[in-house]
């Protein structure tokens, strides 16, 4: 266990102490104690900068289950460090924000911070794990803690619905991902991601390669809310706003992005990867931004916008895979896509975090997040307004902010894709830039909606619950810091290029960097009049026009009937699954023992009959059979007659007596076949059990004592005949095929010499195999005690004690 391991586990350890802090130091907001941890972690991880900047990495291994090859390996490279800094940095800001957002007295803060710390630790574990099994473990931790955080206000229906939905979808993806990991580890014979990446070329030709890739991608797509799995994210907005800001914009939803980036060295050479990741990402981007415009809830807009931006990053990662197919560094224009992905990842975390916090402030200060009720808040909340302008304009991709730069790079990558002559891109090439451009237009529209519908226009105080005013300073610190970063990264993007972006990009596509050289990352504002600049101008013009005429074309959304949405499909399939499984269960779980017996016996016939037929097991060999005597035949006839009497008797009493006759006949068989001890026991037992049957018969309730013949049922007759035949056939076959002699010769020899008895049956029972006897005695004792208990113990007060009374 090294410092790195303790850093991952620190949030979990801290989480244990949070409830005590809440109790012992109730006068201080618990968040202040929690705040220390992400700050310390952030500064701890800063010391890895020098290592990763030179494309180095740090790896620490602690044994966890060494016999299975599962180690807790923490691994820091450019990509992990980027995510770690996002997690701890934004984590610290979110905790600070939550201190002012959540009331000290009204909320159960210890729950909140325990869940949040659990999540933070899990997320650190996800991005720092090199072992796929530990990665999966932390992955599920994020799902669980996200579930807990979404349902933080668990007395609300919508919270519970959203939590359940996100749980079902992300855990489904997580399990698929585990499957993918296991397939991968079978293919590569290791659990380590780095070792898997080292044998990527061999894995590429493996027949299971595509299966592993699709399973891993399912995990990534569900977590990162890609089409069609994005539906949980808008419903997760029922969580407290700090949670939405942290989990559902900056960190957890990027776990899928991280996964795709981390597994790029393994999978990315394949054309499937390029197509699946690129196309799904781009379609998600366009689809979600189109849907974001119709939302009226601010958090709903932001949720769809998150989905759309994640799709953007995902598509860039997919397209970046093309860079692996060009060896020379100079003409490899597709590495730009990877750089753009990493850059936009950082940008999105900053502006989306701040936008969520801004929305939280609006909610907190006005009491609503509905854009139809809000308006004209500009003069009342000037700082919040400024922050939202910075965030939203950056999201829309407007010039002075960092979003502009990454959006330009995004459009550039899409345009460059048209030159790619790989993976049959040619025929579809035009679709990529068009979809990207349409998505960007809608992104522009909803970004404008966030700013102008809320802060300009008519102020409607009568629709608001509270009198709006500017937020307290403490609440504003975190969004201000993030907005400052938006501006700083926008104006000086090269601050990031070699410190964060280049090492991260190198981790995603390691082969593009020749040893000893560095990837050329230069981000600047002015490229000259390029196609992407013209596209951005087009986005702004078309976006502005569409925004102006928004009410006129909003009707377009009405053409999407509620019945074909994915949400409707999700609800309907859950309902159908529940109804379906219910009706299946009700269909065969009838509650009647006779039905279950039919299943058991039918299965018995089917299984044994099939086995006998398939293995051709039936043999008949009469050579070992003994001659048949006249009195044996007579006795068998008696037995059959008595048995048939039981079946066809009109009264129960006749059946009982016939059963007794059967028992006595069997004892006679014991006599014929020379088993005196058995005959003795059988006689006594038969008498006693006949008496017990009579006892039962006498105590039957008057109503059900009606004496009628059993109804004949064809199904039952067939099953009974089948069981009889199967058992008979097996008996004959077993008797006909004896593979070795019996061991009874030993008993015959040694009964007197070793055990000192003459009765061999008794010697076997108490001497050679006395253990069986001991436990049969135990069975009898238990039965006797049980009967005594059943008769004597009547705990039900006032209940019927006897049906006759």
């Amino acid at each position, binding site marked *: 266990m090294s410092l790195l391991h303790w850093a991952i586990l620190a949030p979990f350890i801290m989480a244990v102490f949070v409830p005590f802090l809440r109790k012992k130091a109730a006068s201080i907001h618990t968040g202040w104690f929690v705040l220390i941890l992400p700050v310390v972690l952030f500064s701890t991880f800063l010391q890895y900068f020098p290592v990763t900047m030179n494309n180095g990495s740090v790896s620490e291994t602690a044994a966890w289950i060494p016999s299975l090859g599962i180690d807790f390996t923490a691994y820091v490279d450019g990509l992990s460090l980027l995510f770690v800094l996002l997690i701890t940095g934004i984590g610290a800001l979110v905790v600070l924000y939550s201190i002012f957002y959540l009331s000290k007295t009204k909320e159960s803060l210890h729950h909140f911070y325990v869940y949040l710390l659990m999540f933070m630790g899990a997320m650190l574990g996800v991005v720092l794990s090199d072992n796929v099994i530990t990665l999966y473990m932390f992955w599920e931790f994020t799902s669980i803690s996200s579930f807990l955080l979404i349902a933080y206000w668990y007395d609300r229906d919508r919270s519970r619905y959203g939590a359940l939905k996100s749980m079902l979808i992300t855990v489904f993806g997580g399990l698929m991902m585990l499957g993918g990991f296991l397939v991968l580890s079978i293919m590569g014979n290791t659990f380590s991601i780095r070792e898997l990446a080292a044998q990527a070329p061999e894995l590429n030709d493996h027949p299971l390669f595509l299966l592993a890739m699709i399973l891993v991608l399912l995990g990534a797509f569900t977590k990162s809310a890609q089409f069609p799995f994005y539906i949980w994210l808008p419903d997760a907005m029922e969580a407290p706003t700090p949670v939405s800001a942290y989990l559902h914009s900056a960190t957890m939803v990027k776990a899928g992005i991280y996964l795709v980036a981390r597994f790029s060295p393994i999978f990315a050479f394949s054309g499937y990867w390029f197509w699946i990741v690129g196309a799904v990402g781009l379609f998600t981007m366009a689809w979600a931004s189109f849907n974001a415009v119709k939302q009226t809830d601010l958090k709903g807009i932001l949720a769809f916008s998150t989905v759309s931006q994640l799709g953007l990053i995902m598509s860039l990662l997919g397209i970046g895979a093309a860079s692996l197919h060009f060896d020379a560094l100079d003409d490899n224009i597709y590495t730009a896509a990877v750089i753009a992905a990493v850059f936009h990842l950082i940008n999105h975390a900053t502006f989306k975090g701040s936008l969520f916090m801004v929305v939280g402030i609006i909610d907190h200060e006005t009491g609503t997040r509905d854009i139809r009720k809000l308006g004209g808040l500009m003069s009342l909340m000037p700082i919040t307004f400024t922050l939202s302008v910075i965030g939203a304009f950056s999201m829309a991709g407007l010039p002075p902010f960092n979003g502009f730069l990454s959006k330009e790079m995004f459009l550039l990558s899409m345009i460059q894709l048209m030159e790619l002559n790989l993976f049959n891109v040619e025929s579809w090439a035009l679709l990529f830039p068009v979809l990207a451009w349409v998505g960007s237009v809608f992104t522009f529209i909803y970004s404008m909606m966030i700013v102008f519908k809320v802060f300009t226009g008519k102020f409607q105080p009568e629709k608001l619950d509270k009198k709006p005013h500017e937020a307290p300073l403490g609440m504003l610190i975190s969004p201000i810091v993030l907005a400052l970063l938006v501006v700083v990264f926008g104006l000086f993007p090269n601050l990031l290029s070699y410190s964060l972006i280049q090492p991260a990009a190198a981790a995603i596509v390691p082969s593009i960097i020749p040893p000893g050289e560095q990837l050329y990352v230069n981000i600047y504002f002015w490229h000259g009049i390029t196609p992407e600049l013209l596209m951005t101008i087009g986005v702004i013009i078309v976006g502005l026009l569409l925004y102006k005429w928004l009410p006129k074309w909003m009707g377009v959304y009405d053409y999407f009937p509620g019945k074909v949405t994915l949400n409707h499909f999700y609800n309907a399939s859950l309902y159908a699954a529940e109804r379906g499984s219910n009706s299946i269960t009700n269909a065969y779980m009838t509650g009647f023992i006779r039905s279950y017996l039919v299943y058991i016996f039918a299965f018995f016939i089917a299984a044994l009959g099939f086995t006998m037929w398939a293995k051709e097991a039936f043999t008949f060999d009469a050579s070992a059979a003994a001659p048949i005597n*006249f009195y044996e035949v007579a*006795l068998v006839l008696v037995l059959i007659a008595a048995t048939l009497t039981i079946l066809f008797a009109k009264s129960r009493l006749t059946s009982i007596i016939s059963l*007794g*006759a059967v028992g006595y006949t069997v004892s006679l068989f014991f*006599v014929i076949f020379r088993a005196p001890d058995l*005959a003795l026991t059988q006689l006594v037992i038969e*008498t006693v059990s006949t*008496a017990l049957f009579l006892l039962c018969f*006498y105590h039957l309730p008057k109503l059900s004592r009606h004496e009628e013949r059993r109804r004949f049922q064809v199904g039952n007759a067939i099953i009974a005949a089948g069981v009889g035949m199967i058992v008979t056939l097996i008996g004959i076959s077993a008797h006909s095929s004896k593979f070795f002699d019996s061991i009874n010769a030993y008993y015959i020899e040694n009964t007197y010499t070793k055990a000192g008895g003459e009765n061999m049956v008794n010697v076997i029972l108490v001497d050679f195999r006395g253990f069986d006897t001991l436990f049969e005695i135990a069975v009898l004792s238990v039965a006797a005690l049980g009967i005594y208990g059943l008769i004597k113990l009547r705990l039900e007060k006032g209940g019927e004690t006897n049906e006759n009374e």
Partner: protein
Amino acid sequence: MIEPILHVTLAVLAIAMIGLIYRLVKGPTVPDRVIALDAMGINLVSITAVLSMILDTSNYLDVILLIGILAFIGTVAFAKFLEKGEVIEYDRDQ
């Protein structure tokens, strides 16, 4: 010389047994069946005795005694059940 006689005896006893079974199955009333059962018990005693002679063993003498006792107890119990409706009476019932 004795061997064929024993077999003939056994065959006769078996036929008697089949007749008793017929009465057990057919027996219009329950007492008919109980009597048949009792007679079957005694018939069993004889069959067992003949069998032990055929098998030339004395191990079945216990069985013979036991069948005698059980047939008696069983018949008495049945008789009491048919008469009084129960076999073992409680003291407090009286």
